[in-house]
Each structure stands twice: as structure tokens, then as C-alpha cells.
């Protein structure tokens, strides 16, 4: 196979659904270069007005916490429940709380 798709790098695609929202990961695709990755992402992931802005980033440029999604990296958050509002008991009749 000459110049097969397999040789094109993998890009991860992020779409901003509408103004005021974060870009959210929607999937991935292969493309020869950055510009065509954006164009392909438009056709594959936003055929029905799903977004107002697209980011693409080469998958090999992403550094991730791994190898498991349940990583000790997240453990410190587990024992700091006081970071959550529900940690604090407040009487029901206190307004605007």
C-alpha cells in the first residue's frame, strides 16, 4: 500500500459546542497535516452545528497521567473532601447558600 492512511498521524479532536463552554474531546482522526486535520474534523464531527470552534492536536504530543485511568496521581484529591461544598453542614433555612 503506497502512502496509506496508516502513515498519516493521528489527531485528537476537541470541539467547543457554543460560546461560553470549554472545548471537549469528541474523537480522533487521521490527516496528512494540521490544516487538513481541521478540515476533516469539521466534516466528521460537526455536520449538525455541533460546534463553533475546533482544536486538533497530534495524539503523540499529548502527555497523559497513566497507565491506568484510576491513577495514584488522583489519590490526593480523594482524601481532601473539604474541597467540596457538601463537606460543610449548613442549616436548611439559611438563604442563598
Amino acid at each position: 500500500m503506497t502512502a496509506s492512511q496508516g502513515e498519516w498521524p493521528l489527531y485528537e479532536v476537541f470541539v467547543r459546542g457554543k460560546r461560553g463552554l470549554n472545548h471537549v474531546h469528541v474523537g480522533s482522526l487521521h490527516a496528512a497535516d494540521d490544516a487538513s486535520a481541521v478540515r476533516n474534523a469539521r466534516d466528521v464531527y460537526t455536520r449538525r452545528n455541533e460546534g463553533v470552534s475546533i482544536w486538533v492536536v497530534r495524539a503523540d504530543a499529548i502527555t497523559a497521567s497513566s497507565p491506568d485511568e484510576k491513577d495514584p496521581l488522583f489519590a490526593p484529591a480523594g482524601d481532601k473532601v473539604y474541597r467540596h461544598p457538601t463537606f460543610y453542614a449548613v442549616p436548611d433555612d439559611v438563604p442563598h447558600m
Partner: protein
Amino acid sequence: MTGTATDEELERHFEQVIARHDRIEPRDWMPEGYRRTLVRQIAQHAHSEIIGMQPEGNWLTRAPSLRRKAVLLAKVQDEAGHGLYLYSAAETLGVSRAELVEKLLTGKQKYSSIFNYPTLSYADVGTIGWLVDGAAICNQVPLCRTSYGPYGRAMIRVCKEESFHQRQGFELLMTMMRGTDEQRAMVQESVDRFWWPALMMFGPPDDDSPNTAQSMAWGIKRDTNDELRQKFVDMTVPQAEVLGVTLPDPGLVWNEERGHHDFTQPDWEELRAVIGGEGPCNAQRLAHRQRAHDEGAWVREAATAYAAKQRLHEQHEQQERHEQEATG
């Protein structure tokens, strides 16, 4: 990580995730059989979307109006998109796109048997939307909750779009049923041809489906083939009444006791033959896919060459800037 987890620990962790109906993600440890089953199922699903463009694509240039043509184009384009979502999901399991394409073209991986039947009249476009996409929805809605994260997310996107596919098909058939006697006959003839192959889309009966139990234990499949087939029949009967078509099964009757319709099983020998390559269009579908792949080669090569040239150009510019800075 504190120490290296043993295989038993990894397996236990995997089983726990499955047991609490949580999702497995690409970087998690998973048993080899789970990975292999998913690759097979997702690849087959992706190939079905890609090959599925052909039966309807057959009518693009002969659509009866600009409206119908625009709708059909959008639908066929969606099928391509669905194939791409699913190929990406499969690739998160460590297979390459080139490998998947190669396995389709050499017949090592299958696609849905339904696409090996021809589309002989324009009514088939409507029937495919109504019955074939209707059956696909029955299959796919539970897959949104499948245990493998990327597959479930792809299915959510697919399902949102399938609903347009089914409705456009039903509307097309309704329009024809309001037309002439000849048009009504076309619809009935088309439904007669597609009913049995649509029932086969759910796969062989449960007692002849060796992989079902393991797939359900792993949370890959959520319902058995027969459960889904029953659901499809129950869902379709009242729709057929609205359309005014007859489903071609004299054994199709409501069973008060079961709370479901009884119906005749399709010819399982035929399904076996079609999967084995002896359907009316198997050779044609693969030959067409091969031709499209070959004829697209120059586009892929041109895009690759352009990207390489752009990179070279950028490198030169960067070098020149560095030199200017050094001498300046």
C-alpha cells in the same frame, strides 16, 4: 505506583470495574479476549457503515427530486462519518487503520449481511431507512452503555444521527403510499424483500450464538440477539399499520400471554450462506470498495507529499531566521 500489580490484581480490578457497570478506558489493563472481541465487533460495525454507503449510493443520481437527493446525500455522508467514529474507537485498542482496511478488503473481517442485498427500486431507499436503520437502532441504543468507553461514546453520536435516517425512510414510504397504486405496490414489494434480511441483522438465534454469553458477561453486549429481534418486531408492527403495508409473515400474531408478537424465524441457512460470501452482492460490494480505495490512492499520496513539502518549507524559514539572528 507502589510496586508492580500482579496479573491477578489487574484482572480483579478489571472485573470490579465491569461489575459496577463502570467503563473501561483505552489505557486500562484488559484481558486479551476482551480486547480481541471488541476489535472484532467494532471493526465489523465500522466496515458495515462503510459498505452500507453502497446500496443507497446506488440511487443518488436517480433520486426523484432535489430534496430527496439532498437528504440521501446527507444520509450516505453520515454513514461514512459513522464508519470513521468507529474506526477511531477500534484504533484505541491498538490496531491501525491500514490493518482494518486491509482486513475488510481481504475478507478477513466481516460486515453486516444486510448490505449484500441489492437495492432494486427507489422504494428500497425508504425501506432501508425504516427497517434496516430501525433494526440498527435497536442494536445500537443498548450499545451506548457498552463497557468500553470509546465504543459507547461513538455509539451515542451514531444513534443521534440514525434517528434522522429512520424518519426520512418512513416519510419517504408514507409519501409513496399516498401516491399511485403502482407506487404502493413498489413499497410492498420492497418490504417483502427486506423483511427477512432485516430480521437476520440481529445475528443467529441465541442457542447458536457462541460468543453472546461472554460478551454479555463483559458488558460489551447488553441484550441477546433474540431479545433485540423481538423488540424490533414489536416496534415495527404498529409502524407497518400506519404505513398500510403488510409484513410478509403469515405467522406474525400478537401473543397476549407473552405480551409480544409471535413471528416466523428467517431462513438461517440463507444467513449462513450470505455471511459465507454467497449473498447476491458480496463480490460486487468488495470489488467496489477496493476500486474506491485504489482510485483514491493519488489523493492520499498528494496530501502526504504536500504535507512533507510544507514541513520542509517551514524548516527552511526557521533556519533562515536563526541565521539572520546570528549575523544580526
